[in-house]
């Protein structure tokens, strides 16, 4: 459930939504997308705003028989009735796949790709609709460091090209700290602003209900767990040793 949410996302903005599990990150994304309607209050979207959505990889049925090209073309359900792609659509799909550096994978099954390539396929599908706003649910969930870097580079390129991006993430240091704007959420908005203003012990504790500290590194705020073992854990360790 989400309450007291008053947020504005503007053209060209790049925002991350962070918060603990069950804090309403995905719900907020779906409210922005329009698939979940608020019980009270309203969402004002500019008329005709084109929105693309990249779901969590955990939500994808990876055994579904679709090639990369078939998957990307799914976004095109309007305009053409015939099942097969037109020459123009073929060129569009190839162009987007080439832009995302996965052009040679068009005929591959979506499961037969690396984590970063899979994420690119679903970004490509969203981009085929020529969105002005791209919503992404946990784009770096479960990927290794190198793949996370690849995705960050890609999103940075898309953002520099004028695309507004709003994403959710659990990864405070690997993802959130690199973004220009953050929203801390725990059923309500705890704080928002640039990472330096938001990733503070006070806001983080109110967001996550756990004590955290931040340190400065290379001009970025790095979040550090302030974990203190309880007496039981220490006793268990001693017994184990």
């Amino acid at each position, binding site marked *: 459930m989400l309450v007291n949410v008053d947020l504005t996302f503007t053209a060209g903005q790049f925002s991350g939504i962070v918060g603990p599990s069950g804090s309403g990150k995905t719900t907020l994304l779906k409210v922005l997308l329009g698939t979940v309607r608020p019980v009270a209050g309203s969402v004002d979207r500019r008329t005709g705003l084109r929105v693309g959505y990249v779901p969590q990889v955990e939500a994808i049925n990876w055994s*579904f028989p679709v090639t990369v090209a*078939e998957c990307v073309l*799914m976004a095109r359900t309007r305009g053409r009735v015939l099942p097969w792609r037109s020459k123009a659509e073929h060129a569009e799909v190839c162009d987007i796949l080439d832009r995302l550096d996965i052009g040679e994978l068009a005929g591959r099954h979506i499961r*037969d790709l*690396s984590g970063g390539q899979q994420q690119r396929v679903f970004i490509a599908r969203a981009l085929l609709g020529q969105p002005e706003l791209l919503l992404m649910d946990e784009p770096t969930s479960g990927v290794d460091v190198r793949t996370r*870097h690849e995705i960050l580079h890609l999103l940075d390129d898309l*953002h520099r090209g004028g695309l507004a991006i709003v994403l959710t993430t659990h990864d405070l240091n690997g993802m959130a700290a*690199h973004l*220009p704007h953050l929203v801390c959420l725990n059923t309500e908005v705890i704080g928002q602003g640039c990472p330096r203003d938001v990733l503070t012990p006070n806001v983080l504790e109110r967001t996550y209900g756990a004590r955290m500290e931040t340190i400065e590194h290379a001009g970025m705020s790095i979040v550090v767990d302030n974990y203190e073992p309880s007496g039981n854990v220490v006793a268990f360790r001693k017994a184990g040793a």
Partner: protein
Amino acid sequence: MDDLLRPFDFEFFRNGLIVATFAGALCGLVGVYVVLKGMSYIGHGLSHAIFGGFAASALLGVNFALGAGVWGVASALMINGVTRRRVIGADAAIGVITTASFALGLALFAIFGRRGRSFDAALFGSILGVARADVWAVIGITALVALVVFFGYRQLLFTTFDPEVAEASGVHTARWDAVLMLVLATSILATMQVLGVTLIAATLVIPATVARMLTSSFSRMMFLATGIGAVTGFVGMNLSYHLDVQSGPTIVLVGATLFAAVFLATGARGLRRTVGLDEHSGPAAPPPHIAAS
């Protein structure tokens, strides 16, 4: 050779063969969506639900296609409605609605006795009762379903693969789910004559599953499943005559044999497909500190 061609001298066999071939193709085509939506049980359940309509129409003396059709469509829409509410899963909805309908059919037969069409034929299928009108009905329904799938290909694919994003992209997923359920109910109704209530599920599931083992492309899977269904129906019906076994079980056994053969043959291919999964395009530099807009 003469022995192989002898059954073609009989009109009932020619009718049955055409119906079995088209029914196989129809079930193969529709089965792709059934299998990919993880609703393999629905074919089994819905055919049992239609049996309730079969019993009621036989007892009331109304047209079988009309009675069982209305019953089947109502059951399909109920399952779809209950499932979309997401309070209970599709399997539970199918279990409750279709078994209740089947039980009602059995109870009606028990109370009022068996009248009209053969009880056994409804359960296990028979080509003896296939009339010329049935042949045209199955051909017509196959053509109609093919048209629906052709013109709704993009929407049905998106709805089946990723309903939430499809909805957000402007696809009326509720409408397309309902269309799919209507198509399924109609297909079961059309094929019940030859395959029987208890065996329809296999003809929905087996061709699609075999096709899935042979390809990783959705469009190719549709063509393969349709072809496999048609061939299975054709071969099964011929064997049914020569082995003197009911058409439904023979068609299903042909499909099951094909499934086993493909399963054994693609075991190695399945392993080969996994080669290259860990290939990456190359190392990336550390992430940038993305500039504020």
